[in-house]
């Protein structure tokens, strides 16, 4: 009996260590939202997920991978393209979001249509303008591949690919994409100081932007109408399509501003190429409507010097180490 207890305790300790080494909560971050107890991270599952992420096998025509729209070098988004691209040169209706710190996200997609990270990949795999396939088709391709049967065996001690295993492995890799070593984080950890201009920008940011772009994640995980006029061609009305609730009309998810230097263009439809255009929108471009965010009802007033200061602060959110981390790149 004693031996059993000892064995159990040491196993518990071991799993704690394994868990910790794969995923550490940065000191200045809150508790993650993702339930790791349902999908404990392991080296082999992360490798399987990483391999899947970079493999066009997920698309019908074997041409588009997750990376096609989520490149590690741009903090896992698609720079220079305002809207996402898919199979047969099709173009989607929204700007691909950057991927990092996903364990702290409550919902996914610009309209919050996805309720759990595990289920996220289903949407691009099935969307006709993205990968144009289905989870069933992907799972049969994986089961027909010797390479994947080995990877599944390594991860699950069983070579059979299932929908659940495929989705959970992708989650595992995505969960390891933690970005927490920007100049801002180093300043918070008192490892360095901001310049005078960055300090001014930080104060202005806290006064004007941080109620939605809340520190330290730089989002409050909510949905807001930030006063963008509706694009005449896209006619995207946002979250109301998901909830059918009129109060959600024109609302989109508040994105994190971390790594914003790498993730241009900006907004759900990628309409702004530069940060200065974004700030000009908040000072001069807000369109009033019933669902406009309360925080923007009285407008935002900033001089051009103040805008320059805020931009300098936003650049402190760049995490170079994350963007160039070899562990996040194409598996060799």
């Amino acid at each position, binding site marked *: 009996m004693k031996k059993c207890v000892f064995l159990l305790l040491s196993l518990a300790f071991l799993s704690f260590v394994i868990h910790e080494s794969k995923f550490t909560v940065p000191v200045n971050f809150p508790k993650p939202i993702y*339930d790791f107890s349902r999908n404990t991270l392991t080296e082999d599952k992360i490798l399987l997920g990483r391999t899947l992420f970079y493999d066009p096998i997920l698309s019908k025509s074997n041409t588009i991978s997750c990376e096609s729209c989520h490149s590690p070098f741009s903090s896992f988004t698609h720079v220079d393209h305002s809207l996402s691209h898919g199979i047969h040169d099709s173009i989607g209706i929204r700007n691909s979001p950057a991927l990092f710190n996903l364990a702290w996200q409550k919902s996914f997609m610009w309209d919050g*249509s996805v309720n759990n990270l595990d*289920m996220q990949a289903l949407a691009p*795999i099935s969307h006709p303008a993205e990968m144009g396939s289905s989870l069933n088709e992907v799972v049969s391709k994986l089961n027909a591949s010797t390479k994947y049967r080995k990877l599944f065996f390594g991860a699950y001690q069983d070579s059979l690919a299932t929908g*659940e295993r495929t989705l959970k492995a992708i989650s595992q890799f995505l969960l390891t994409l933690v970005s927490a070593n920007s100049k801002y984080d180093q300043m918070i950890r008192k490892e360095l100081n901001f310049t005078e201009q960055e300090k001014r920008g930080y104060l202005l940011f806290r006064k004007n932007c941080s109620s939605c772009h809340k520190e330290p994640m730089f989002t409050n995980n909510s949905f807001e109408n930030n006063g963008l006029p509706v694009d005449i061609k896209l006619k995207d009305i946002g979250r109301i399509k998901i909830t059918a609730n009129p109060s959600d009309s024109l609302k989109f998810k508040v994105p994190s501003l971390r790594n914003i230097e790498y993730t241009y263009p900006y907004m759900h439809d990628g309409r702004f190429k530069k940060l200065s255009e974004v700030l000009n929108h908040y000072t001069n471009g807000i369109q009033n409507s019933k669902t406009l965010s309360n925080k923007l009802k009285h407008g935002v007033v900033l001089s051009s010097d103040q805008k320059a200061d805020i931009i300098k602060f936003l650049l402190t959110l760049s995490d170079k180490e994350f963007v160039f981390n070899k562990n996040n790149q194409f598996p060799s």
Partner: protein
Amino acid sequence: MLCLLFLIDASGQVGEVVKISFRTVYGNKAIILNDSSYMHEIDNLIKFESLKFYISNINFYQNESITYSEKYSFHLIDISDTSSQIILLNLPNGLDFDKIRFNLGIDSTTNVAGAMGGDLDPTKGMYWTWKSGYINFKMEGSCSQCPSSNRDFELHLGGYQYPFYALQQIELETHTKRNLNLCLDMKKFFSKIDLKKQKSIMSPSREAVSISDQLAKCFRIE
């Protein structure tokens, strides 16, 4: 320790198997997929191309108190797969029950819990891809007098969030029966809905909730 193992093992062995079978009928005819001979109205024949639904959270009662609760109780009943239409439960020996309760669909907690396996695996075609959530009940088919050219009815009923929470609890008296033959009568269902108006539902809505409620009333014990 050994003693404990023995007890667990023993309780697993000693139980009594109770079989729940599902049958889908149209009046007095069993439903066979792609057979277009189910009469909806005169000159309007119905054909079913696909019919599947989730049964979950099975509980047995005796005098209003719970006597047995199935653990991890999720079952996809698919008319195209006869083995899916039988649920075997291992009840403790001599257990009495006079009522069974179960859900038609998947509860909200399970809907937000991430990827699941077995009957809940998203490859089963019962999970929406454009918006998270299980499809509780899926029925596709056609009718000879309906106007559209392709599929005439396509009901994908689901939704786990208020005000469009489509899950239905079904309660049936079992009397003294041990094996239970459950029957879903689609003729009863089609007599309650207007096929011309409600032929295509593909997302959570008020309509999906009210149709799910109608469906729940079409189950009976034979």
